[in-house]
């Protein structure tokens, strides 16, 4: 999961004006141009406006003149005013079919958002009742004191937690454990860098494991409907092995590049499991929710509905009180809902289908399209929020997937969508790529070039593994 990034970094004034022109001037120009200027035949006014909104979303999410969640809300507002049935009446396009304002607004409460809300509640309760730190302590114990095994343990636990908690919170927690270790390792030990790098890598990779591990996964679910839909357990059945293999490869690579000189690392995490009734409710609810998520084929309750269970229990028992509730990452939820609204507008206005018709897919190889889309997702995710990357690419890819004639050759629509969603988690070459990267970089143990080299190599290995996984499950 992402935090808003870079929005308050000081930029020179000229550059700032240029950014504003790109982000807001270009979309306005796009709305004002006559329809004939567009290279798409029979474009409607609504479709033209959706193009403008899409351009605005793309530039605002890449360059971040305003916080990325603000861009999401702006998308929803513009859709309501410009192309919905409750829009400004003088602006209403006369001939076009208007979008339902209820549908646009309801993206705030879409099933995907509920799934994430459930995840947030679980994570919040786990942190509050120290389940995370205590689990880390117990799970790290068998890995012993040999640095290389300890590092594997740290990475496994980071990955495991980030499947259910936000990647950022997980990375912060594990780095908090790591700081005292780094303090006692000698300055000359290359393993210091390896250790500091291992946490963000594991946090990013671990997010692949479950639908709630990172927002791009959940956004992918939005586009996998009907026959293509994937359950929580089904996702984990390929997500977890993929994350695990990538994790072990990364571990080996880190050890090879940053070998440890120290023979022994002592790790001290204080505390014991809380035994209060409330703590037990947290443990049981956590377990119950995961079991229900994994057994949807038995009881028929889908993951979205199951996600509301921890919300109900924790609120009813006051385990999550009103103050805790106010501190949830609402910005992430709004960021995702803006992406869903963008996808809805692309689809419902007819623009997506229209665009796809005007591209000659017959001459292109399906595999080439998939490889290109996956690389594009990874490259974009390196420079901007993973969630925003998925928000922008997935609606287009979903529309493409339906139209490509040979899509069955690679296993259907979901292969293409999953390739893009999973690749969006592989952008981790720069400190700005993901919040876990930024936090690890802040330890001062890692040079940007070291992070970039590791990030690029792991990203490439990851993409190959993603293709391999999708080929196996197809």
């Amino acid at each position, binding site marked *: 999961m992402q*935090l*808003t*990034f*870079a*929005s*308050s*970094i*000081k930029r020179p004034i000229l550059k700032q004006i240029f950014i504003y022109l790109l982000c807001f001037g270009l979309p306005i120009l796009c709305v004002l141009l006559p329809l004939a200027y567009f290279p798409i035949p029979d474009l409607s006014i609504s479709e033209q406006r959706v193009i403008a909104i899409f351009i605005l979303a793309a530039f605002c999410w890449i360059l971040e003149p305003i916080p990325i969640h603000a861009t999401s809300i702006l998308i929803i507002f513009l859709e309501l005013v410009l192309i919905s049935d409750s829009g400004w009446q003088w602006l209403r396009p006369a001939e076009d079919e208007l979008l339902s304002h209820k549908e646009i607004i309801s993206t705030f409460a879409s099933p995907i958002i509920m799934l994430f809300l459930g995840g*947030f509640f679980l*994570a*919040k309760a786990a*942190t*509050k009742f120290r389940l*995370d730190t205590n689990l880390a302590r117990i799970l790290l114990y068998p890995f012993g004191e040999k640095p290389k095994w300890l590092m594997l343990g740290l990475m496994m636990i980071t990955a495991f937690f980030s499947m259910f*908690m*936000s990647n*950022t*919170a997980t990375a*912060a*927690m594990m*780095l*908090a454990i790591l*700081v*005292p270790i780094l303090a006692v390792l000698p300055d000359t030990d290359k393993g210091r860098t390896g250790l500091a790098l291992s946490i963000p890598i594991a946090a990013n990779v671990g997010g692949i494991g479950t639908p709630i591990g990172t927002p791009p996964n959940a956004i992918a679910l939005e586009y996998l409907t009907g026959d293509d839909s994937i359950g929580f357990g089904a996702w984990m059945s390929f997500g977890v092995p993929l994350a695990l293999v990538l994790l072990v490869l990364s571990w080996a690579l880190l050890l090879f590049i940053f070998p440890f000189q120290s023979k022994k690392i002592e790790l001290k995490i204080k505390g014991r499991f809380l035994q209060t009734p409330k703590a037990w409710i947290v443990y049981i609810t956590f377990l119950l929710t995961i079991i229900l998520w994994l057994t949807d084929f038995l009881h028929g309750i889908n993951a979205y509905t199951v996600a509301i269970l921890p919300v109900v229990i924790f609120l009813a028992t006051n385990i999550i009180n009103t103050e805790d509730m106010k*501190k*949830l*990452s609402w910005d992430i939820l709004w960021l995702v809902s803006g992406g869903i609204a963008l996808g809805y507008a692309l689809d419902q206005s007819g623009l997506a289908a229209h665009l796809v018709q005007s591209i000659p897919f017959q001459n292109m190889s399906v595999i080439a399209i998939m490889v290109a889309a996956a690389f594009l997702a990874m490259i974009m995710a390196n420079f901007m929020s993973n969630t925003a990357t998925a928000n922008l690419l997935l609606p287009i890819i979903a529309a493409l997937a339906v139209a490509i004639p040979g899509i069955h050759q690679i296993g259907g629509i979901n292969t293409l969508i999953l390739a893009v969603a999973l690749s969006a988690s592989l952008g981790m070459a720069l400190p700005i790529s993901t919040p876990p990267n*930024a*936090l690890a970089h*802040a*330890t*001062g143990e890692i040079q940007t070039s070291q992070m970039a080299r590791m990030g690029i190599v792991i990203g490439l290995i990851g993409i190959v593994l993603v293709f391999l996984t999708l080929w196996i499950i197809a």
Partner: protein
Amino acid sequence: MEKLYILCIEDQPEVLNSIVEDLSFFEEHLVIEECESASEAEEIIEELDAKGDLLAVVVSDHVMPGKNGVDFLSDLHDDDRFRNTKKILLTGLATHADTIRAINKAAIDRYIEKPWQSALLLQYVKELLTLYVIEKGIPYQPLMKYLDKATLFELLKKAG
């Protein structure tokens, strides 16, 4: 964008200089304001508040002509506008009673005895700045260089 302030109050100019020098690390991104008395500090605080700027950390001496440090910090503590402002008392001459008042009435966050170690002062300001930034919900990424990493990780971990 709002500026973040660190305020240093000390009546002896040479001591004030050395405090400011110790904190020069923050100069690039934060404003370090020097005052020689509590009344001067109060003026500056009013000004920065009127501009919408934020008072993150105050480093104050105790024994000064006019209002003393503990009284100044107590008033600051009672002022709702600066509820999150972090307070360091830097003194060599506080009595037992002053110290008790500093804790109970001014709720100081750190107490440093003179003569002080530069590294310690720097470390405390970093820690308190981190706390202030997270409590106020200020984006921490651009400030990362000035924050204490261990404190930051702990706070972010709790934030879930």
